[in-house]
């Protein structure tokens, strides 16, 4: 069956360092992958989308890579700040029989940036 895996353990880093989060998937070849940020008690907020033909995407201090051979995406936050502390979710479109694609989310990884 198709699976999306994110590290369930929280990632603790010091302010100013680069945070790297991982999203692995199996039994699937998605056309794209998305990353979202979720703060406690709030809905997720879209950050970045990377397509299968893109190796890397950047937005300000964020960088996402997509390795379709390894079936893995890495999400980097450079010069991290305490305000970056949140849970980060990856999402892939999963094909349903009947022709629909629905986004399926990993369980997310909590990032804690210490001052």
């Amino acid at each position, binding site marked *: 069956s198709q699976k999306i895996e994110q590290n369930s353990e929280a990632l603790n880093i010091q302010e100013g360092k680069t945070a790297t989060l991982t999203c692995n998937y199996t039994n699937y070849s998605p056309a794209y992958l998305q990353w*979202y940020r979720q703060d406690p008690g709030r*809905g*997720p907020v879209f950050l970045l*989308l990377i397509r299968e033909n893109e190796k890397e995407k950047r937005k300000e201090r964020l960088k996402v890579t997509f390795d379709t051979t390894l079936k893995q995406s890495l999400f980097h936050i450079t010069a991290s700040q305490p305000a970056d502390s949140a849970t980060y979710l990856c999402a892939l479109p999963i094909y*349903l029989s009947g022709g629909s694609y*629905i*986004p399926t989310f990993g369980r997310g990884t909590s990032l804690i940036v210490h001052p």
Partner: protein
Amino acid sequence: DVKVTQSSRYLVKRTGEKVFLECVQDMDHENMFWYRQDPGLGLRLIYFSYDVKMKEKGDIPEGYSVSREKKERFSLILESASTNQTSMYLCASSLPYSSPYNEQFFGPGTRLTVL
């Protein structure tokens, strides 16, 4: 500013009650989704709709139904609330999968407690 709104932030209901959760989006999106989110289990899709009056079951539809009479509004109904339906409920909307800009926009969530 684009928005997805949900009718309540917090809701307390009794076992056996019929519960309505309302979601409205102002972006003219075709797709709308209902998720529930529980600690350790991540976001799980209950139902989604890709057009008015159309609905598809997600991963955990049991005990729920939905209604989409207008494009901007998607309602989740708990026919007879049970304590195991205590959860955070999140509504989202998006453009179709075929769109290159189909990220999901989430509402603020409704934290439902069933006593």
